């Protein structure tokens, strides 16, 4: 089983962040960068698949040279090799991004590595477009399923599960396939020190994709008003019970 995981370098904003003065970006000067959480789970899933089924794993990202940091982090956890689709750091829309990924997958396939499974996170933590995985699958003409929280293999098919109210939806996909996964599918491992040291020696292939004309243009970003919590004291001791019950009903909890 050869698995490719597509990841995105995103700012680790935590609770607080600021925008650049032109409103075009998040001010990243004091921010750390990370892998989108869903994609961290996709990386973990790929390593687990390899542990069970054998085969190879690779991780791919489209972004500036510094995004190799996120590739190395994945290599430190156990992914075999990395592919960086190197850009000048400017924004690529989902259409352009997926086209570059498709081109890369096809050119790698020509060199002999046939991917059976391409994993994405369900959506990226920054722009949250929900598009790239689906677009890649459509362009490759591979089956695709999104929002997945469990992956198994039976007779050369992927059995994927998606959480639904009160149960699970079950899907069977023939390989090769594209699956986008959601946090909760697994608990990602921490990189081990040995993993960090060996990651240095693993190969990162660099490809410079041509930037296509962007059709989706960002106007600007606006920071939402910070929500301040409100504390309401409903009463003290046992006398507060009716007020609590009324409030819970109002909130639709009971």
């Amino acid at each position, binding site marked *: 089983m050869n698995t490719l995981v597509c990841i995105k370098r995103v700012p680790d904003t935590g609770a607080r962040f600021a925008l650049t003065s032109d409103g075009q970006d998040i001010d990243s000067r004091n921010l750390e960068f990370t892998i989108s959480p869903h994609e961290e789970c996709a990386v973990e899933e790929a390593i687990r698949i390899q542990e069970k089924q054998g085969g190879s794993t690779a991780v791919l990202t489209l972004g500036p040279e510094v995004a190799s940091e996120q590739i190395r982090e994945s290599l*430190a956890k156990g992914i075999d090799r990395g592919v960086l689709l190197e850009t000048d750091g400017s924004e690529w829309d989902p259409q352009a991004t997926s086209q570059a990924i498709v081109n890369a997958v096809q050119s790698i396939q020509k060199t002999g590595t046939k991917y059976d499974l391409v994993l994405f996170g369900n959506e990226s933590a920054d722009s949250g477009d929900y598009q790239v995985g689906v677009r890649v699958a459509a362009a490759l003409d591979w089956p695709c399923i999104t929002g997945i929280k469990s992956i198994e293999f039976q007779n050369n098919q992927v059995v994927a599960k998606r959480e639904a109210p009160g149960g699970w939806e079950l899907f069977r996909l023939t390989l090769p396939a594209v699956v986008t996964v959601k946090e909760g599918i697994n608990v990602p491992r*921490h990189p*081990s*020190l040995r993993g960090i040291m060996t990651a240095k020696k693993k190969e990162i292939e660099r490809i410079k994709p041509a930037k296509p004309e962007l059709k989706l243009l960002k106007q600007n970003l606006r920071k939402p008003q910070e929500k301040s919590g409100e504390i309401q004291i409903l009463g003290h001791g046992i006398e507060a019970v009716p007020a609590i019950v009324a409030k819970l009903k109002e909130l639709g909890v009971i």
Partner: protein
Amino acid sequence: MTDFNRSEEHQMIVKGLRSFIEKDVLPLDEENKKYLEDERARLNEDGSLVPEFKRVIQQVRRSSAKLGYYAMHMPAEIGGGAINRVGIALAYKEVFRYGPGLNVFTLSGAEGPSPMLLQLSQPQQEKFLKPLIRGEISTCFGLTEPEAGSDIKNLKTKAERKGDSYVLNGMKTFISNAADADFAQVFAVTDPKTYKEQGYMGVTAFIVERDRPGFQVGKITRSIIDDGGQAELIFENCRVPAENVIGQEGTGFYTAMGWLGIGRLNIASMSIGLAHYLIERCVEYATQRTAFGKPISKYQHIRGMLAESAAELYAAEQMLLHAAWKMDQGDSIIQESSMVKWYATNMLFRLADRAVQIHGAMGLMKELPIERVFRTARVLRIVEGTDEIQKETIAKSLGL
């Protein structure tokens, strides 16, 4: 040229530690709050740690060891991480940035493997060193005696050669992890004449297993930090086989001196990590706490305290990184390690005092970790060479 960029490898180590601490250790802090906050819950009658708390500490050490972080300072050939001093300094700092909780057990301390044990023979390394690196067993470092603290030229513990073994008599005190150690590293005088004449030679280091007849753990001392850690080691005609000698006879102390710098830099890194933690806590508290109608962070007194703290922390951090870098270049850092240890621990002590002040009464309550850092900060000015001993070393390096 000094390169102030952090290497990619160091950044990854820091991130790896963060991932481990935030996801695996901090939730344990929450569950074990009562042991961390209250020595009455943490300690048995005799001053030792209650088994429940010991198990949690053990859990943190073992999981960290499994990931390879616990013994990252040891060479790769025996299962360590072979990380350089700058990397180790950044790692300790990062771990202690999370405050005085269970995170402090992530990287090894006095209970863990030290380069001194690399002098053991192959079979002895298998028996003692490798399990230490895996976090499966623990040790203690027995040097201080009732009459020999700073004045380590006044050791009274003796070891006499009898056939192919040595007989130990004497006592050690304030030894960290003594009560729980599976074996002790003990310094004893084997050549009193040379020791008297030269001070550093004539002392031999031994491994003494916990169950060796003639060896017992004495009183566990209660202390300002009450970590159940410090106890006495008592030797009464304790027979130790010659294979338990660490390194060569008569040179134990001399070789141990070579690693003094490492211990000092580690203490400085811890102080710097804790100082970061305090500043974060203080900024958070000062912006939230209001007095006389505005947040106390708006008052010049408070702002001044925090501004000074941040500048002092910056100074300490640069000193540490420079000394660690110099050590990585293979240069001697006798003077620098004393300067960094003295400056960083005193910086932390000042910051801890201000942190208490900024938190008011809450700064003194056990509910918040501030008073715990304050107490720890006081300890760090004594261990691994007191303030005065560091200043003596610096003065000597000035030719005084």
